[in-house]
């Protein structure tokens, strides 16, 4: 960028920044009404989980989470639709390979723990999924071309698992006359766990699959069969 | 849903539906297309006949569709609309027959006849419009449906002509739209009311009313080819002859002239228009157009161009009639709506026949054509003499009433305009007749397409002008007969002035 646009940018930014700043401080200092967080705490007992963040994500605002998973899916499908890129590999070094053999199982184990812990403590599907994704990325970095991922068919199934679980439960509760995604209180804990598990797998798989920046399948082959 | 609420819509649909179906007809299905065309025209004629009878007996016909609160599409029938509907329906039938003959063996006939029917539907919609909004809607649709007809031949000249046509008419449409909306915002829904509907507008708004009138006149003047808005008319001569006939006699210019009549009589009311000084404006424009058009016509060698400038001039008689206060002048102007139509369509049919049969496009090529094509030339002569105003042909009746009305209204300057115009009309028509009848024929015609047989040209080309020429004579000779254009126009004037 040359000098003039920078100057224009700066001139534009300065007053805007001041106004924004003022607004932010006003917002922060204003006494707000009953905050959702308090409300979320008081209703927690009816959700079947002990962690308010998990309750927000999967119970109170499960619909939002379902659509957010849709965003992930759209991004993944978008990356896949862009076609292949040439893989840029370095042959892995011995030490790295040895470390990976330790780290990856550990990551997977931790992800499982986070998923389980999310019900009561900080943790949950997105964090667990992120770890799973990281495991895939590490595998890729060490030359494992398929990132430990299954076949394309299985990848497609995994990618939709989270939304699928949400939809199945949602349509099920709607059909039972309870309303979309209204979990019956006695089943709530287990339905949430089901959705969370599916979501963890979906997020992990999506993150890992997005990393190479192209569709699944044998790398280096420019044209894949329809 | 009774006949009274359905009939106006049915008249529009009787050509709209066949028109839409014709688009789908395969190019080779000649008979099917003719069947659709003619059945549409005949059905429409039947409906119109019912309507004439009903309106004569003070029956109210009204179809209404609400588009938005306070915004209704209204089709209704009063004496003036029936006059225009009858004219366009009759001439549509004749022109369809002519066009079937004329376009034999040319490409894109389905497209042509489809738009041809849509064009008539919109003309009829204009005629039956019950308020200014509806008028505007059909007025714009008319622009759209005639554009493909003008461009039909697809040559660079026709595309250019069509573009000029469109630039003029769409700009005019924008002016008309502005004026109409403004009037709507000022006075509420603008329903056509005999005697005008703006009487209740307070005096301090009269300046606005004048501005609105200028806008409306700007919009209508384009199609009515008032100078200086006439430029498109000679350019759109590139269209096939039946289209020119339709544009000049039935649809486009008439829509403009008809709109001027509506605005003067049924929106402003002639008294208010007079009080605002608008009639003077209109009269001056009309007179200028009459003289300018005739002068330009004198200088044209192209036959269709000469006829086009003649249209510029002749159509303004209608506006001239509207600009003179008093029922007699009204009769003269309104009846010319019909008389100019039948005369001008005759002339264009004949011009088309000369071009199609012998390849004659210019006046200078017409030497001795009367002997080769006597019937066509006879029809042409009737139309031309009528245009000049020779009794007993229809044009005489119009001029007579216009003159009489001018004298009654003490507007003697109109007589000067009429006199000058008649001289000029004679100046550009008589030489043609002289050439056709009295000069010797050349060795060979420019391009003889149709050899002489039992008839001088194809029947479908010959009969239409002969019939319309006959109509010109009948309208003049039997002017006092019941249901003649003149008699009907007197009914309009009586109702308009509340006599």
């Amino acid at each position, binding site marked *: 960028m040359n000098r003039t646009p920078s100057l224009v940018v700066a001139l534009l930014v300065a007053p805007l920044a001041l106004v924004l700043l003022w607004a932010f401080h*006003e917002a922060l200092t204003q006494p707000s*009404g009953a905050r959702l967080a308090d409300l979320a705490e008081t209703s927690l007992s009816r959700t079947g989980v002990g962690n308010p963040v998990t309750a927000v994500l999967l119970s109170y605002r499960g619909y939002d989470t379902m659509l957010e998973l849709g965003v992930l899916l759209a991004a993944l499908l978008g990356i896949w639709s862009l076609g292949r890129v040439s893989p840029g590999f370095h042959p892995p070094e011995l030490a790295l390979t040895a470390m990976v053999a330790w780290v990856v199982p550990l990551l997977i184990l931790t992800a499982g723990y986070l998923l389980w812990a999310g019900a009561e403590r900080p943790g949950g599907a997105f964090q667990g999924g992120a770890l799973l994704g990281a495991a895939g990325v590490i595998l890729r970095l060490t030359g494992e071309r398929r990132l430990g991922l299954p076949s394309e068919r299985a990848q497609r199934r995994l990618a939709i698992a989270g939304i699928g679980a949400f939809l199945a439960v949602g349509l099920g509760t709607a059909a039972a006359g309870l309303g979309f995604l209204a979990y019956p209180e006695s089943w709530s804990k287990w339905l949430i766990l089901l959705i969370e598990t599916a979501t963890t797998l979906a997020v992990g798989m999506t993150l890992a699959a997005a990393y190479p920046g192209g569709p699944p399948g044998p790398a280096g082959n420019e044209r894949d069969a329809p | 849903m009774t006949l009274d609420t359905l009939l106006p819509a049915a008249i529009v649909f009787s050509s709209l539906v066949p028109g839409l179906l014709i688009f789908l007809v395969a190019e080779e299905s000649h008979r099917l297309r003719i069947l659709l065309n003619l059945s549409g025209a005949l059905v429409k004629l039947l409906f119109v006949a019912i309507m004439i009878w009903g309106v004569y007996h003070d029956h109210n016909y009204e179809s209404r569709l609400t588009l938005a609160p306070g915004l209704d599409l209204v089709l209704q029938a009063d004496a003036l609309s029936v006059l225009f509907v009858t004219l366009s329906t009759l001439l549509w039938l004749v022109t369809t027959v002519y066009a079937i003959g004329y376009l034999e063996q040319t490409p894109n006939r389905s497209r042509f006849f489809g738009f041809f029917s849509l064009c008539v539907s919109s003309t009829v919609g204009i005629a039956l419009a019950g308020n200014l909004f509806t008028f505007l809607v059909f007025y*714009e649709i008319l622009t759209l449906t005639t554009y493909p007809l003008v461009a039909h031949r697809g040559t660079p000249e026709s595309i250019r002509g069509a573009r000029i046509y469109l630039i003029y008419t769409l700009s005019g449409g924008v002016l008309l739209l502005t004026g109409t909306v403004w009037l709507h915002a000022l006075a509420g829904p603008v329903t056509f009311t005999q005697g005008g509907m703006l009487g209740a507008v307070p005096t301090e708004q009269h300046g606005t009313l004048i501005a609105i009138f200028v806008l409306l006149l700007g919009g209508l003047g384009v199609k009515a080819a008032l100078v200086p808005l006439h430029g498109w008319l000679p350019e759109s001569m590139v269209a096939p002859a039946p289209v020119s006939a339709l544009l000049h006699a039935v649809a486009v210019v008439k829509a403009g002239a008809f709109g001027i009549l509506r605005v003067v009589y049924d929106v402003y009311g002639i008294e208010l228009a007079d009080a605002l000084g608008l009639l003077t404006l209109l009269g001056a424009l009309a007179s200028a157009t009459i003289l300018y058009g005739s002068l330009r016509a004198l200088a044209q060698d192209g036959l269709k161009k000469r006829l086009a400038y003649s249209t510029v001039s002749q159509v303004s008689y209608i506006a001239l009639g509207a600009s003179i206060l008093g029922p007699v002048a009204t009769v003269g102007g309104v009846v010319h709506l019909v008389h100019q139509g039948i005369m001008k369509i005759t002339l264009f049919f004949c011009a088309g026949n000369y071009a199609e049969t012998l390849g004659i496009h210019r006046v200078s090529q017409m030497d001795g054509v009367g002997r080769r094509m006597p019937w066509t030339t006879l029809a042409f002569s009737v139309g031309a003499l009528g245009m000049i105003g020779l009794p007993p042909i229809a044009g005489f009746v119009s001029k007579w009433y216009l003159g009489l009305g001018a004298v009654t209204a003490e507007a003697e300057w109109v007589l000067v305009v009429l006199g000058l115009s008649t001289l000029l009309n004679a100046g550009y028509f008589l030489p043609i007749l002289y050439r056709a009848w009295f000069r010797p024929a050349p060795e060979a015609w420019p391009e003889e397409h149709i050899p002489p047989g039992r008839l001088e040209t194809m029947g479908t080309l010959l009969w239409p002008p002969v019939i319309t020429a006959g109509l010109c004579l009948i309208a003049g000779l039997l002017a006092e007969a019941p249901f003649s254009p003149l008699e009907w126009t007197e009914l309009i004037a009586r109702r308009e002035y509340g006599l």
Partner: protein
Amino acid sequence: MDSLALAVALPLLAALLATVWPARATLLGLLGALATAAAALMVITEVWEHGQLSTALGGWDIPLGIALAADGLSAALLAMTALVGLAISLYAAAYFDGRQAMHFWPLWLLLWTALNGLFLAGDLFNLYVTLELLGLSAVALGALGGDRAAVAASLRYLLVSLLGSISYLLGVVLLYTAHGSLDLARVAAALQPGPVAAAAMTLMIGGLTMKAALFPLHFWLPPAHASAPAPVSAALSALVVKAAVYLILRLWLDLFAPLVTTGAAMLLGGLGAAAVIWGSWRALHAERLKLLAAYSTVAQIGYLFLFPPLFQATPPGPGRDDLLAALVLMILTHGFAKSALFLAVGVIQKRSGHDRIAELGGTAQRLPATTFTLGLAGIALIGLPPSGSFTGKWLLLNGAFASGQWGWILVILTGTLMTAAYVFRVLSRAFNLEPTPPGFVTDARTELPALLLAAIAAIGLGLAAAPLWPLLGGGEDGT
């Protein structure tokens, strides 16, 4: 009230199925389109009967749960999306094959999910999520064109789209920090004029004008819309941009009603006017048909922003109802007309291998139904009768005359003439000396959906707009 959730859940379900069975994507997609349209129809009938619908999802009451809500405005846009979406689906089934179909259908159904979700959302954060879903799926679809230009254009589109959403989200966070709620109705009730509200309004509406491609933030739209495959261009121009406009309208009328000022309205109006003139000017000089259509979108969006100043000057009552209906009518008409235009251009492009206007003659002549579609869509874009935009423009002009705002009248009329100029620049190519086509329709599966959309825009919406008034009257403006 499950119809609201179904209208979002069904296209989403179809998107999942099409993802899992890529070989059957077209069939699944068509079935999904039908089911989605049926769900939309259910919502619209219920809104027609009850005036308004709302439901809290997940069995949690409003401050905690998420509200879905529908009123006349949402129903109108839902209906447009359903019809345009069906036509695009039918067209796409014939247009795409093989791998392209496999990529197209899941993304297209996700896009549809996002649209329905956005029109039905009653929660500020949920609106953000639908905006994100909409933006990402739209960008991914836009890049299906595949060549480098398409990807580069999509990239820019993605950047603008994300920045727009984030700007919107910043505003939402401000409102949430100040009022402790995300529910649209609750925040609207609690909102007080002040710096926070003003900054939130600027951030949210500003971010959305980027997505709506309001001049001068339109720069991303023409390349993105012009380089996408035809059915995608249709969806982008007709639906995706409209979603942002819808949201601006919703915020303007519902959320920020107490603090919108004449100055802000005039600013939007002025930008709209500039968009009308600039977009039309560029369309007039475009060399490719798709680029022309895309610039035309810039111009047509401009018209929609002429309404805020008139809203501001018109007191609640029939005049304001008319303006709102006119605005919705223009949104709908443009949606139908522009999708028809892009679909028709797609037919021409497939037939002749290009869309250069100067070399269009022969193709247009040989495809009467498609040329007819271009004509009808053109009529609707110009705003000639009997199109819906004619009625809309009439009411717009009427409002401008009634409130004495002459400047807008001049803009509208100039825009109308310029639109006519670029539409007929294309249409005049259809008349030339090529041989006569044998019949009206050449390829029914692509030509008819486009023709149908164009007919709705140019005739249907003009003549049958009257139900809009009762539909919107029971709705959000509450006057």
